[in-house]
């Protein structure tokens, strides 16, 4: 009878497609909006992801997110190094600075200074030039994504250089009136923040900034092998009063800040809720219409001896099939969307958890849609079969 129930559903092309479209739409909207949301969230902490694997980030206890500026005293580095279980600790400096490009254009930029000796904290993926080139005089690294965009050459200079618009190794910048030479480029993930990012050594980064008493933005800590990170973070806090985060914890701190301080969650929440509601209404309404249209056949089946249990199974099978197909179509369309726009400025990330969430939402939609219909079928008096 299940097979016949499905034939009944699919034989009614228009309604079948209507229900499918409703479910697929909901699935698409929930998955796609969810993926853009997750993608954006990942970008908010891309700086943390891009910094090669320290075990702990030690920061000022009042720091609210990674882009927040609450520098610490240089001495804190030595105190952290003294905590039991710390294998090594290196400083990192991050500040916002004025940048003057070779063609005279000016903009703001983020300068990140990594440990002069070890260069720990510099991006892992360095393309033009090498990380070691940072040790050359006045050397800085620029973002591969910016060399022909934000930091590209324009105007007379570009013309004088025979139309070269790419900023290249050897070009000279001015950072807060200090000379800086491009020594190479690095690749990092697209960020939620828009200012160009420039890496250099800690000492140079500090010298590019107006002088300040506190010049330590982060301390990157490597734990001794076999050390429990949670316990180490607590020891660091107890010894120094500073806060230590794992990579996950630091990402979460940033993401939660953005979620709480901006309307981003509500906006995406509304889009997802809208997909859910519209999908439920469209699928539920069409499914209900389908059932009503077939009510006399359900009545006949009931008279012929179909039990309520079998009828419930038939309706659930119908809802299940449109659920699975609609979900597949929606998720497929969302993935296609992601694949086509992948590598562009659009944020899109589809982790399996999100597939689970949209799958759960689709199950709820189908159950809601089926519930109304099921009620009608169960309440149906088989006696109606004899009525014209």
């Amino acid at each position, binding site marked *: *009878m299940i*097979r*016949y129930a499905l*034939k*009944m559903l*699919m*034989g*009614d092309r228009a309604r079948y497609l209507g229900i499918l479209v409703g479910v697929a739409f909901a699935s698409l909207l929930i998955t796609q909006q969810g993926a853009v949301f997750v993608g954006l969230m990942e970008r908010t902490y891309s700086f943390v992801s891009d910094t090669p694997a320290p075990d702990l980030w030690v920061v000022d206890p009042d720091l609210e997110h990674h882009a927040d500026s609450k520098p610490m005293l240089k001495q804190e580095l030595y105190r952290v190094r003294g905590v039991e279980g710390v294998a090594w600790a290196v400083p990192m400096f991050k500040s916002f600075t004025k940048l003057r490009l070779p063609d005279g254009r000016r903009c703001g930029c983020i300068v990140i200074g990594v440990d002069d000796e070890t260069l720990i904290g510099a991006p892992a993926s360095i393309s033009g030039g090498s990380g070691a080139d940072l040790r050359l005089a006045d050397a800085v690294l620029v973002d591969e994504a910016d060399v022909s965009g934000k930091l590209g050459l324009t105007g007379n200079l570009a013309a004088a250089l025979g139309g070269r618009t790419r900023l290249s190794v050897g070009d000279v910048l001015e950072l807060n009136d200090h000379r800086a030479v491009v020594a190479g480029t690095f690749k990092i993930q697209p960020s939620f923040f828009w200012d160009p990012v420039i890496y250099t050594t800690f000492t140079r980064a500090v010298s590019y900034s107006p002088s300040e008493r506190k010049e330590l933005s982060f301390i990157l800590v490597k734990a001794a092998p076999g050390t429990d990170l949670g316990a180490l973070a607590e020891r660091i806090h107890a010894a120094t009063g500073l806060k230590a985060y794992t990579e996950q914890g630091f990402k979460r701190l940033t993401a939660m800040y953005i979620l709480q301080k901006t309307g981003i969650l509500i906006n995406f929440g509304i889009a997802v809720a809208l997909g859910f509601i519209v999908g439920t209404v469209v699928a539920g309404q069409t499914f209900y219409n389908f059932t009503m249209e*077939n009510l*006399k*056949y359900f*009545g*006949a*089946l*009931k*008279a*012929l*001896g*179909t*039990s*309520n249990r*079998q009828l419930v199974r038939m309706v659930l099978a119908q809802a299940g099939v449109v659920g699975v197909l609609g979900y597949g179509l929606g998720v497929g369309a969302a993935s296609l969307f992601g694949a086509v726009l992948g590598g562009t400025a659009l944020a899109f990330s589809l982790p399996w958890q999100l597939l689970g969430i949209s799958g759960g939402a689709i199950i709820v939609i189908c159950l809601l849609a089926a519930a109304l219909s099921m009620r009608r079928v169960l309440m149906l*008096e*088989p*006696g109606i*079969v*004899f*009525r*014209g």
Partner: protein
Amino acid sequence: MSTVPAQSPRTHSSSDRATAVHCRGVTKNYGTGNSTVRALRGIDLDVYEGELLMLVGPSGCGKTTLISVIAGVLDRDEGECSVFGKDFSALSSWERTRFRGETIGFVFQSFNLIPTLTIAENVSVPLLLNGVDRKAALQRAKEMLSVVGLGDRVNDTPNRLSGGQQQRVAISRALVHNPRLVVCDEPTSALDHETGHKVMELLRGVAMSGNRALVVVTHDNRIFDFADRIAHMDDGQVDKIVGSAKELYGPNMSAQQA
């Protein structure tokens, strides 16, 4: 075409046949309060195995209500009613559904064939409901359709068939699982006269082989000759049971009198 059916109408007394349907004092009201409709007001009726009983009477007299009660798709208010000794109101809803599925075949005025299934699939439904596996059910459905002359149309959907053909499919569905009682509500009223006559011939010929009981509700006095007995209803009661239409309306009955 109005040939007299092969088996001429006969009358039976309650003593020479087993009782298929037994009703005493059956009442049924629709609605409550001022708007109550007393559709059945004390029905006494027996239907015997091996007979075709027609239920006739003016519109609104309660014919459909009565066969709904007999077929167990509608609950009566008072009185006794049993089918092959079983009283529907004593059964649980599940037992009632099961008993109906095994024991009773249905033919409806508007056929009620599922339009998206082939006619073989439609006919196989009662078998599936009785636990026959799909392959065997389809096979038996096709055999049944051959009996009613539709062996070459088994894979068509109902809407490609004429009204008479659809009713033959419905009859196949009503009989395929060998139910002991078949109820038909106005099986010919959606059909033209000649087609109706053929459908009745088929019903009489195919359904009456074996010891089945048939209850046929009809307005159509041109098919009265197919009945073994005719029960006439008026105002919620059976007021006459006769052996032929002539006894009901006299020798010069006209179409209007039914």
